């Protein structure tokens, strides 16, 4: 746990963060967010800062397996939690299925919101698999059973991740593919996608 070591003061602490299965011990100013600790202290810059106010989702990471925004998470308060960032979702050189689908289906343009979209999608697919309803789920009562992961469900569940390039259509396709679900519409369009597949 957090120790007040000589180099720490009442406004800073030496903490140990568990990130992508590795432990990092570092002194932090209590003001330091997890996002800034990752980006500026640990050189894990894959987690992006888009707004720093919880209003864009670019900094999405997984905390104890649940998607969260790192910009509103104080680093000192993240001690003891399992932190997974975009750098930790692949299996070595083998991309996570969500990453692979984003790559293959062009689920991005500038790429800046992409790590957040991918981490969010990974967490979202888990939430859906656990039976969580969403704001567009017609009947939230447990008796109704889990909703199918339609394009509409994906869109609502991913709405915490803004993409200003507006690659939304291909992001939804990528998430659907990775979730081994098909969007509820636009089957004709997937033919177009095939035409555009990697040459």
């Amino acid at each position, binding site marked *: 746990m957090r120790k007040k070591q000589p180099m720490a003061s009442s406004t800073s602490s030496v903490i140990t963060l568990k990130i992508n299965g590795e432990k990092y011990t570092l002194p932090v100013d209590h003001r330091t967010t997890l996002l800034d600790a990752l980006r500026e202290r640990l050189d894990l810059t894959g987690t*992006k800062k*888009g707004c720093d106010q919880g209003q864009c989702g670019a900094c999405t990471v997984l905390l104890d397996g649940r998607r969260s925004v790192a910009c509103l998470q104080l680093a000192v308060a993240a001690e003891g939690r399992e932190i997974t960032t975009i750098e930790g979702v692949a299996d070595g050189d083998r991309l996570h299925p969500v990453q692979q689908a984003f790559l293959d289906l062009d689920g991005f343009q500038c790429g*800046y919101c992409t790590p957040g979209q991918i981490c969010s999608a990974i967490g979202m697919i888990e939430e859906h698999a656990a039976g969580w309803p969403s704001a567009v789920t017609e009947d939230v009562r447990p008796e109704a059973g889990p909703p199918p992961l339609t394009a509409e469900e994906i869109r609502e569940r991913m709405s915490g991740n803004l993409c*200003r*390039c507006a*690659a939304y259509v291909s992001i939804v396709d990528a998430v659907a593919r990775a979730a081994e679900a098909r969007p509820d519409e636009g089957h004709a369009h997937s033919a177009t996608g095939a035409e555009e597949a990697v040459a």
Partner: protein
Amino acid sequence: MTAVTTGTPTRAPSVGTGHTRVEGRDKVTGAARYAGEVPFDGLAHGWLVLSTVARGRVSALDTEPVLAMPGVLAVLDHRNALRLETDYTGLMGMRPDPTCAVFQHDRVPHRGWPVALVVAETSEQAREAAEALVVHYEQEPHDVEFTGERPDAYPLDGHMPAVTEKGDLDAALASSPVVVDAEYTTPEEHHNPMEPHAATARWDGGRLEVIDSNQGVTWVAGELANLFSLDPASVRVRSEHVGGGFGSKGVRAHQVAAVMAATVLQRPVRVVLTRRQMFSLAGYRSPTTQRVRLGADTDGRLRALEHSAVSATSTVYEFVEPSAGVARVMYDAEAHHTANRLVRLDVPTPTFMRAPGEAPGSFALEAALDELAEKCGVDPVELRLRNEPDKGPVSGLPFAGRNLAACFREGARRFGWADRDPRPGVRRDGRWLLGTGTAAASFPAGAAPSTAAATALPDGTFTVRISAADIGTGARTALTLVAADALQVPPERIRMRIGDSAFGPAMIAGGSMGTRSWSWAVRAAAGELRERLALGADIPPEGITVRTNTAEAIAALPPAERHSFGAQFAEVAVDVGTGEVRVRRMLGVFAAGRIVNPLTARNQLRGGMIWGISMALHEEAVRDRASGGHVGADLAGYHVATHADVPRVEADWIDDTDPDDPVGIKGIGEVGIVGAAAAVANAVWHATGVRHRALPIRPDRILSAAAGAPDA
């Protein structure tokens, strides 16, 4: 030494085939580093302090207590700042907006004007110190109120003449059996790229190096050299990955402040704008008020067209949003008047934002066309086909390809337009009223001189260098395909290096001209290299390099009206009880030149169309009259479309190879947004029977219209 052979001429072209992004793996793994993410030893952090008054002067800054705060290294303000040179004309043929020449005087011309930079060891320390800096002002009354009624509005030539006039407008209107006369407004809109502006500057052996997020490295390097009176050869700007730009990422206060601080402190300094700061420092699209008057025969053929637009600029720099320009391309009439006028307010300087002019202009013009179609009882698609000009309505020049009619025919077929009942307000799905709308799109196609270098290496690979920018357009990939075809090798053998001013001058990522301009240069360099290699030369270890410059070839292009075109279709659902509007489907069919990479191009065109949805329904920066500043200057207050706002938008294109371009390219970066907001607004009318002439079409406006106002 190794001999290298290039492929056979029969190799299938790479251009025109879908390819995933060459840097895609780096982007999905988080390995791609953006401007604020390149580490430097001894890095210090700068935080800008912005004015809290909208007009006046800085009378004092209490810097002493701030300098005593933990970690604070320096406070730069107008009293101690390096002097900057602003009397020059930059690469883009523009004089610098003095907003980027930070800390040169005590005047405050708008709220959010940079008055100081606090530099500290950590970003937390810099932020707290910047917030603690007490700045005293002599405040003066400000004027931030934009309306179309301003008597002080004056015509201004931007990158086009302010006013064009032919024929007797009043007479033509008077003799027209059908007249539309309406005023349209669009609000202040902000680019809000996902990556905030960020720059790290350092001096290294007498050379200035800046890691930046921008749309043109040689442009920004040139501006910095001018501003700081440096030898251009001693300034290097790199911008490998850029998290969106949309027109906002040129030279801005953050780079200049970072260079100034790095010079003073002689250590690397990074300055990153906060999302809130971007609202006053990153530029924006001016609000517009536009009056459109159309006179037509009963069959919809235009006799008179007037498009008059007013936009705002700051008191320190004239930037005009040329909304009326789109009418000069789209429709002809015997009387044809267009004008762009400007008012000066105590606000930040606006700038180019995706389809400057065309985006707001097409909203007004294409909505007015829809009103004309209604009045004439002519189908909106048919109305546009009847008004297709055979030459530039104002220029008289021939069109170098105008496949708009083909876009409409193909789009109408795919959208199912033929079955459309023209009556408004008669389709219902539960609580939703349904409607469809259409609009035309156009955006200029151009090319600007660029240089490129192509190198053959002994291992059989090629390196191509060009100071292009990939701000999400897929330029790096597109150029790889162009180079591969010119060399007749597989794309995997090309290494495309971009985003470094050391590669020499090139067009910026802007004006829908980037990929075309760069492809021209890359193709020339790679083609010449292939010819050189065909002679059977041995490749030395350093490779064989060919450099090209396209200035002469581009200057030789014959004058013509050169544009990309498109037809937009939208279906919306409106709940008039709650004011909610949802776009249910959208289709755009474009004639935009040869499509280099269908995979990324479709994505980009859809992105433009979604910007149109966002513009039609969501985006609006609210300026507070009392303070002169924004209310809700963040991504919770300024709404852009989310996943849930976006249906399965479809973008497609028809064959439209530009015969005057070596690769056949026109440009696709901007045409996607043009007309998109009008198509949505026209669909809202078709759903509800109410014309919404003020964007965005927010729920309160739908509700107010339903409550009685005949037209919102």
